């Protein structure tokens, strides 16, 4: 990569793991998968996404008053599985990417598996860098591991997941 004005993140999975107690590099925080998802916004567009027939739904609006990040998420459950997640949102790349990753991962999961996933994600994010993300459990969501080192950003990564948990409680 040329040493130009555009330092851009290294390609996915080539970043070294952060040492405990040291600052993360920007590229360790903004992994490629996060930047990609922040643009893709998988699952975004509530009004354009019809609810699957026969599903029970819950929806939740979450707002971070500090920065104005906002997510409105609707979750549909059918036959014990997550049939669909759709959302509208506005916010930083981390909040939008985490909503996108969640939507992609959740669809098709059993209700109990989504609860397990949300709990595992929360444990990592709230650990202040002490709990390593297990890619076997968290999949693409493991990319948000670095966020746990920045207390001010944890809410950004959690906002869609909190909305999903709230919606899930309504739908089940």
């Amino acid at each position, binding site marked *: 990569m040329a040493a130009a004005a555009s330092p851009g993140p290294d390609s996915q999975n080539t970043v070294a793991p952060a040492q405990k107690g040291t600052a993360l590099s*920007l590229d360790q925080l*903004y992994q490629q998968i996060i*930047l990609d998802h922040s643009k893709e916004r998988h699952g975004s567009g509530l009004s354009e996404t019809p609810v699957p027939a026969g599903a029970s739904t819950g929806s939740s609006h979450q707002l971070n008053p500090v920065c*104005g990040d906002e997510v409105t998420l609707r979750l549909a459950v059918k036959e014990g599985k997550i049939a669909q997640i759709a959302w509208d949102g506005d916010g930083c790349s981390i909040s939008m990417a985490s909503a996108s990753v969640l939507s992609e991962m959740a669809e098709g999961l059993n209700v109990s598996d989504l609860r397990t996933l949300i709990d595992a994600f929360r444990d990592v994010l709230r650990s202040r860098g002490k709990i390593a993300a297990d890619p076997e459990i968290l999949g693409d969501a493991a990319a948000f591991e670095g966020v746990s080192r*920045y207390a001010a*950003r944890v809410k950004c990564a959690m906002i869609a997941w909190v909305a999903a948990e709230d919606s899930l409680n309504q739908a089940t």
Partner: protein
Amino acid sequence: MAQVVTPATLSHAAPDMDDAEVLRIRNDFPVLAQEINGSPLVYLDSGATSQNPLSVLEAEQEFYEQRNAAVHRGAHHLAVEATDVFEDARQTLADFIGARYEETVWTSNATEGLNLVAQSLATAGLWAERGRGDARLSELAVGPGDEIVVTEMEHHANLIPWQELAFRTGAVLRYIPINDDGSLQMDTAAAVIGPRTRVVAFTHASNVLGTINPVIDLVALARAVGALVVLDACQSAPHMALDVKALDVDFAVFSGHKMLGPTGVGVLYGKRELLDVLPPFLTGGSMITTVTMERAEFLAAPQRFEAGTQRVSQAVALAAGANYLSETGLDRIHRWETKLGQRMVAGLQDIPGIRVLGPAAGSERIGLAAFDVAGVHAHDVGQFLDSRGIAVRVGHHCAQPLHRRLGLTATTRASAYLYNTTSDVDMFLDAVAGVRSYFRV
């Protein structure tokens, strides 16, 4: 033969600040001499909170090492010394803004000062209704149908206390809108401020737009209808010479931590004839004359508004901060920061995708710049700058209605102070120029 010293000879005697002087000033601020994420700290968040010079840190330490005692009580030596330095500090702050000693009230911060005024005006109605206190209270009382006027650019601290005052009293809250260039719509102001207006509360300088408001004109509009004027001086008192008497405002507030002082201390200025009749905000020890089991009589200002044990060490340290600013020269500081602010705004305007809020480069504004980066959220901008050691504020800067008016939810703000160099601004501009490409916008 006496020589008349005019402002012209004064400014001749005090040359403008330059980078060499700023580098000397920085030696007084230990916190600035550190690396953040492998880069030298570039601190551009003084609009939120400023850093402290050694003289401030030493004043607080010296107080605790040599004079710590409760003030205004106790006949022992330390109590006398503590009271002396506490009240000397009050005189220092009074002189700093051209006020009188008894018009200078300690608060926790500007927010508390504004709540104090709003709550006291609410209580004034109650007192007047029940025949308590001075007869003039009925003129000060805010009641149903009365109007309180603020501006669209207010910090929440100078908005919500007035919303609550309106709610409590049945008054109506009105506001002066802004123009797209960040100035107040003064034609509308003349219509909004009317015969029912009891209070006009506005910021001297906007913490987001950088606009310096026409205080004299707004005071004239308020005087014409007999309304009180409350000035939020948080972004002016630390950065420019402030003379509350010349401005003829009724109340003014500012916070110590934004002007080289510690947290937990601020100042409320109020005209004596108002402070002495307004009902107290907090009640308890130190602010009374006679107390029975049924009721109490209250002292005159400033003690009237200083219930309970005061923030003595913070007041003493804040006085050291005010002295540091006065010795450097507020006019010189203001000119230096204006120069840095203009450099910031002009530089930002040249970067593609950047929208600077408030007056354009070349127009009058204070030494800060809030801006939007197209396609990149302010939180991400702040994180990117932090990775280069540059500290800025991100978010709505406690001005949600203003951001909504501008069609934004969050922006990034860089704010300069007397310890920032030209190079700080240039490093900041260089970093901002790289934001959009990093986030692939």
